[in-house]
């Protein structure tokens, strides 16, 4: 007796459809899995057997052979437990062949017969489009994301599933679940946790820089002594960003699903994610990769949102320089012997660092670092990487008056409204944000008043602005003008503001070089 059950496995960040063929024949009782299974799949033999027995079903005392086709693709993950179990039941005659017609199965089994959620369900369900997908209850929301509602069924345990398949019970109704699976690690950024911009007292300059960064999608470098609130400011940046559009939301959901991050109640990520990797991060954890299967890195997990690099000077130079190309291209291609994967990586980068090892530098007279120590510290950030930061500002500890005054700052909601308006303006120019305005389009999109043009010329002539910096300043000035609802023309005051938001980054680090 033979049974063929459609299922899917992860290859990189994509799902690949496979067939699980189960053959039950006379012979010595045994269980063989062929077709390039990895360790997790080979171990499924014991899980499947225990789950069937715990669920009161019969394990055939015959020879069971499982083939995973196409046999050239390496299959990993525990998601094949369920299709193997169903295949065994069908092949041994416990379940009618008609009962599983047109159904695809993905899920992990527990020894007690419970069905467990697996990572990457969004892309697996995508790969199985055209089938009705049967998944564990815990993964139902993710599976529903790419498919229409009717095409997903779920159950909490194997016994219940078999009864539903046999028609002895109705399918349980799908419902939204709170994010589950605590063993999967920290959740995505939660807007309720990160605090409101109203908590930031004083610091008008830093707040404005944050607003411009959010509105224009400009990467932001915060340089300041310890305790100046760099982390606090950066945490509040995602709250200023508008909701993700549906295509981006789907991309983010897929990546988070593959990486095993819990998704929000209805499965679709709508708020920009916030990722703050520790400075000990390895190149692979930042960029993506891995040996068993390609895992997206932090820059892809931050896709559509904010990547916050705290203590940027402590990151290894290899990691920082690996960021340069993905930041430019908005995606990262990870190549390994086994294949190449492309992950999206369009994000807003916020770097925070001390001006020098002692933390007090930047302003003359306060720092006690030796020249060599400062140079070594500043050299950890290569000039091309520093160049990616459109905005670079000095953050200072809030004044005592501000700290003790109970007057709260402008709340996130008010700033977010202005940011959303500015983003809408950018959309009318055909880009997601002003930072993406292509060079040739600048003359058309950023018309300058005479005063603004004269000011830029002055800066170019006295050497405070490079030709390369000119384009950046024009884009920032565009964002500033949009935030001020100043209409089409960019005025000198906007250029002034753009220039002051773009300190020379090498100099901010107490090192001109």
């Amino acid at each position, binding site marked *: 007796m033979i049974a063929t059950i459609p299922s899917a496995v992860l290859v990189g960040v994509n799902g690949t459809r496979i067939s699980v063929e189960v053959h039950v024949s006379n012979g010595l009782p045994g269980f063989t899995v062929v077709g390039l299974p990895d360790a997790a799949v080979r171990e499924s033999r014991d899980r499947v057997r225990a789950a069937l027995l715990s669920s009161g079903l019969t394990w055939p005392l015959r020879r069971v052979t499982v083939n995973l086709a196409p046999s050239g693709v390496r299959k990993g993950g525990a998601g094949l437990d369920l299709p193997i179990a169903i295949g065994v039941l069908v092949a041994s005659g416990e379940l009618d062949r008609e009962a599983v017609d047109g159904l695809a199965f993905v899920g992990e089994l527990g020894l007690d017969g419970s069905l467990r959620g697996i990572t990457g369900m969004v892309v697996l369900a995508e790969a199985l489009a055209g089938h009705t997908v049967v998944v564990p209850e815990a993964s139902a929301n993710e599976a529903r994301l790419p498919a229409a509602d009717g095409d997903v069924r779920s159950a909490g345990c194997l016994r219940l599933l078999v009864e539903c398949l046999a028609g002895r019970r109705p399918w349980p109704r799908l419902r939204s679940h709170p994010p589950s699976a605590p063993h999967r690690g920290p959740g995505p950024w939660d807007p309720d946790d990160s605090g409101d911009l109203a908590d930031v007292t004083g610091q008008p300059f830093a707040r404005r820089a944050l607003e411009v960064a959010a509105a224009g999608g400009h990467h932001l470098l915060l340089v300041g002594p310890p305790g100046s609130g760099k982390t606090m400011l950066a945490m509040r940046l995602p709250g200023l960003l508008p909701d993700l559009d549906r295509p981006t939301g789907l991309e983010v959901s897929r990546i988070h699903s593959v990486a095993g991050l819990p998704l929000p109640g209805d499965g679709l990520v709508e708020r920009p994610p916030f990722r703050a990797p520790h400075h000990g991060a390895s190149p692979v954890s930042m960029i993506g990769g891995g040996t068993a299967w390609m895992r997206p890195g932090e820059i892809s997990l931050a896709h559509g949102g904010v990547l916050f690099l705290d203590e940027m000077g402590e990151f290894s130079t290899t990691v920082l320089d690996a960021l340069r190309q993905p930041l430019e291209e908005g995606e990262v291609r990870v190549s390994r012997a086994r294949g190449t994967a492309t992950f999206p990586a369009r994000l807003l980068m916020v770097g925070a660092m001390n001006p020098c090892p002692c933390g007090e530098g930047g302003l003359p007279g306060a720092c*006690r670092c030796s020249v060599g120590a400062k140079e070594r510290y500043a050299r950890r950030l290569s000039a091309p990487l520093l160049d990616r930061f459109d905005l670079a500002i*000095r953050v200072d500890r809030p004044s005592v*008056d501000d700290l003790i005054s109970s007057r709260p700052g402008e709340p996130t909601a008010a700033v977010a409204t202005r940011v959303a308006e500015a983003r809408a303006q950018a959309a009318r120019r055909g880009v997601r944000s002003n930072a993406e305005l292509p060079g040739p389009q600048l003359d058309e999109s950023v018309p300058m008043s005479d005063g603004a043009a004269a000011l830029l010329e002055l800066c170019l002539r006295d050497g405070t602005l490079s030709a390369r910096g000119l384009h950046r300043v024009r884009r920032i000035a565009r964002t500033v003008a949009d935030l001020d609802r100043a209409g089409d023309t960019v005025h000198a005051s*906007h250029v*002034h503001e753009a220039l*002051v938001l773009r*300190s020379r980054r090498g100099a901010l680090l107490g090192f001109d070089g």
Partner: protein
Amino acid sequence: MTGIQTTADRQAATDVPVSASGIGRPGSDVACGAALAGLPGMTPVRLAKILDDVNPVRAWQELAHGRHPADEKRRFMNAVRKIDPDVVAKDYERAGVSVHLRTASSYPPVLRGDPGAPAVLFSRGAPSVVEAGPRVAIVGTRSATTYGLQTASELARDLASAGVVVVSGLALGIDGAAHTGALRTGRLDAAPPVAVVGTGLDVVYPKSNASLWREVEDHGVVFSEAALGTTPRTRVFPARNRIIAALSDVVVVVECQLGGGALYTAEAAARRSIPVCAVPGSVRSPASAGTNGLLVDGCTPVRDVDDVLTAVALSRCGRDSPAPAVQASTFVAAKGRDRASPRSTPTRSARETKSTSGRRQSQGSPLPSGPASVQLSFDPGVLSDDARTVLAALEGSPTTMDAVLRRTGLSLARAAAACDALVRAGAVDTGPGWWATR
């Protein structure tokens, strides 16, 4: 021991010419002295003990035999056996570095009686310039503000013009500004500069001061007690500071943070009863915290070169040292303005330099003073209202944009435009993320 007590035989051994050409005499005291200073693990204190009452050749032989009483652990025995002093001496000759033993006549006389004086001193340039006049050390922080740099430079320029030898350490910041000022007097009869560095005389540190270093060598002298090849390490600089203090009649600290290296110099000077003066600074500027602390401790405040010259005169009048080089003609009793000082302050009206007088003239203006050229081109009347508001909110110490916005209440665009206008007008100094009045 002190270097002045010389016995007849040591006198004979060490009174060889100690110029670069004299080094090469085989087995000479000079060669052995230089080689001793360069032994691995040698420190100024150990060297002083080893050369205490023993001439360098004897010390070298006793170290080689492991019999030297100051080297009971035979720390240096193996190194001494491997090194040929004549080869070391040749290295110094090739590098153009002179070696001065404490007993030699070329050794700076002012250091001879000093309890912490180096047993062996190296120099490049003309070591005799130390005696060209009274000596004032100008020291301070490496991360100085514009205020500190300008003050150090002007003080050094005016002192050198007045015939006072300016001693400093060739470091970044105040030290560099002091040397630059002393070299830029525009006068042929200005006093030569003297530098004392912590590294070997062939190791220029910091590298950005290389050309200044050369200039000081050409016009004056650079001293070091470190052997050739000694790299910048933290412990060499405090040791260097004691020599600066010992060389000087007065120590002026221009700008220094709390715990800064210049306080070592001040402390070393105080221990030698050498007057320490300090330039007052803003109480909000961390770069002036150390100097303001010195003032609280009773150091003499320095407003301009006259205060320093007074301190020099007071410092030298009690000594029977030979002929102070500040001649009476340098000082004219007439005073340019009323001073609250209880001392009668001599003023050099005849030697007023052009920019000093420019600075004086600007004192009635509401703006803080700055370089004369900038002052002339800057007219506060042309400033916009915003610029005036911002100017009033700025201080002499660096002010960040956050503080500017908070104090003025202006929008960022207006404050940024005002700051830019002030910088272009020359009324305000700027750096990465900060602005300050000049």
